[in-house]
């Protein structure tokens, strides 16, 4: 490019190929700091109290339901023979999958130097951590006798018992534990420099102390940055691998069984693309209203950034559509009557409306994002993104519950009926998610300021201008 343009006499017009700006209106680093910190430092707005009361109430009701379930027994749920996994595992998979898009956006896009992801990565990571917390509610309680949960871990005990290491359910324990640990660490470690900024700007003693404690004495010395940057690359690498591992292991819970409809090698891929699809939808659902509430974010999370998330959603949605078609093909091509039967039952049993809702949403809604007009109409994007997540919940239900109610023997078929405890526990996890997210908005800088400032034009020494224009490494 430079070779051809340098011969021309007139200054080349590079605006057509220039990347969209990271921050609109040519804002500088000081503006970024003020804009992001002001969200945390300002007076707590009234809507925040209202919102957290509602989400907190849902979370509390969910907690009460869990307590009721523990003291009474799993019979308060609708799970029963032949469907021993129902809403518990549906919701577990729904939440743990949603988490994956956050790690993918922050880690994988960091490794591939996609600088547009900087302004949404912190919120995406927060979504990841909170969604894993919601997912983590279920595995422990769904075993029924919660006080035996330690059986899941290889703890030397007086019974001389050990867990079954060849079971994907045990792999799951380790996968979800390490996913929660690693994504929390990634989120927290990336936040240390920004927490130090809040510490420096703090005006009250309590804030100074609290932010001082969590920022661990960060000063931003050249040595600290040297180690920090190395750590960030390493963590991003580890997290990227972990995302793929965790979904694959969760998918193995189903795929390694012989249940028709589950026993398929495409399952890890199926879960992975569905995961990123629903996670991207959640990011859009969370960030677009946030931009409306805090107008300064409109210059940081630009329409171009949201446009790219929409495209990610479109790509993953198309992969999901491919898997649906492949499942149909697989059922036919396997020539296995049970496999074909399971597929047929999805659309003809009393659960057909779940399958039809799932397919009609997931096959059509993401395809609307081919149109720029749709991607740029943000209120519409929010509605469509929420619909995508509804579709994904139905998909998880279709995979887990419908499959179990129709297995090999028609005599053992049965239906699942959700109880009020099932429903309130599920809405409780939604409450937990939003409560945590609201706390996140209020107390933590929601945009990675240091990374964003380092990527602003002119922020790097001139001898190193390739970095400052975001033209890559």
């Amino acid at each position, binding site marked *: 490019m430079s070779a051809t343009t340098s011969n021309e006499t007139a200054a080349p017009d590079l605006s057509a190929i220039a990347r969209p700006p990271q921050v609109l209106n040519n804002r500088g680093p000081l503006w970024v700091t003020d804009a992001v910190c002001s969200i945390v430092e300002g007076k707590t707005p009234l809507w925040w109290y209202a919102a957290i009361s509602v989400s907190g109430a849902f979370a509390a009701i969910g907690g009460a339901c869990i307590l009721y379930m523990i003291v009474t027994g799993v019979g308060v749920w609708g799970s029963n023979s032949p469907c021993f996994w129902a809403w518990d595992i549906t919701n577990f998979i729904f939440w743990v999958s949603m988490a994956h898009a956050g790690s993918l956006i922050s880690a994988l896009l960091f490794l591939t130097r996609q600088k547009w992801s900087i302004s949404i990565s912190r919120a995406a990571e927060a979504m990841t951590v909170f969604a894993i917390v919601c997912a983590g509610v279920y595995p422990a309680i769904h075993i029924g006798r919660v006080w035996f949960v330690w059986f899941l871990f290889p703890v030397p005990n007086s019974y*001389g018992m050990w867990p079954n290491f060849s079971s994907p359910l045990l792999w799951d324990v380790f996968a979800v*534990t*390490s996913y929660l640990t690693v994504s929390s*660490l990634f989120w927290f470690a990336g936040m240390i420099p920004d927490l130090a*900024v809040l510490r420096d700007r703090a005006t009250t003693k309590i804030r100074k102390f609290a932010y001082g404690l969590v920022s661990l004495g960060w000063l931003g010395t050249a040595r600290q940055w040297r*180690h920090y940057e*190395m750590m960030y690359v390493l963590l991003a690498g580890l997290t990227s691998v972990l995302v793929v591992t965790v979904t694959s292991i969760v998918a193995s819970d189903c795929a390694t069984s012989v249940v028709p409809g589950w026993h398929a090698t495409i399952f890890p891929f199926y879960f992975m693309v569905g995961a990123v699809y629903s996670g991207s939808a959640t990011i859009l659902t969370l960030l677009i209203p946030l931009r409306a509430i805090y107008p300064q974010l409109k210059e940081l999370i630009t329409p171009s950034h949201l446009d790219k998330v929409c495209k990610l959603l479109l790509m993953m949605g198309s992969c999901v559509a491919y898997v649906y078609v492949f499942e149909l093909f697989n059922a036919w091509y396997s020539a296995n009557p049970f496999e074909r039967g399971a597929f047929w039952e999805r659309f003809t049993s009393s659960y057909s409306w779940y399958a039809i809702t799932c397919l009609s949403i997931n096959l059509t809604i993401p395809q609307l994002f081919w149109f720029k007009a749709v991607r740029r109409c943000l209120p519409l994007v929010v509605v469509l993104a929420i619909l995508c997540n509804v579709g994904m919940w139905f998909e998880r239900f279709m995979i887990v519950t419908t499959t179990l109610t129709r297995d090999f023997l028609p005599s053992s078929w049965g239906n699942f009926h959700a109880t009020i405890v099932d429903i309130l526990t599920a809405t409780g996890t939604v409450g937990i998610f939003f409560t945590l997210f609201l706390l996140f908005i209020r107390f933590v800088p929601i945009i990675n300021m*240091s990374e964003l400032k380092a990527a602003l034009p002119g922020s790097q020494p001139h001898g*190193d201008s390739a970095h400052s224009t975001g033209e890559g490494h």
Partner: protein
Amino acid sequence: MEIQRTQPGRDTKMSHHLPICGSKEEPLHAIGARFDTPDQLVAAVNRLRAEGYSAYECYTPYPVHGLAEAMRLPKSLLSFLVLGGGLTAILIALSMELVPSILIYPLIVDGKPLNLSALPQYVPIVVALTLMIGAIAAVKGMIILGGMPRLNNPMFAWDLFAKDASRGFFLAIEADDKKFTTAGVTELLHQLGAGDVTAIHLEEESK
């Protein structure tokens, strides 16, 4: 050139023309300065290195490319720590799985073998634990190698720095430096176009 050690009494006399922060009675910790641009800071570091200074530190609101190279900082050891953590995790995970499965409590389900021929079934837990312990090593290593956690720092005596370090690119030449003289350092910093050159004394320890 003679090495001049900084004595508290002598220093306050010599640095009378500089703004002072911290406690005058306590020894001088460093002379700090603020630059407006990362270019100035990198240029200053290059000059300091040429002049033979070694005990100085740069404070920036974000990672400045080329600064660590200008300071001749070595590559971070962190990758080795993470490798060590990961290898340890592999050993822990394998022994945690194989010892109970093969030796203590062979649990045969569906007639599946448990010995080494069934190694693939042990892989997922090994991967999960390796990634987890590798990540813990990365974060812990960053904290420890970065000299954290630390509750206080002499630099916090300098209000301009402590109140909002994100407003500039700071340089502090420490009094421990063999070449340190208050006058020489002040002169050098002014030559480099630094602003807010300040003598940072230690703070009185609260008794």
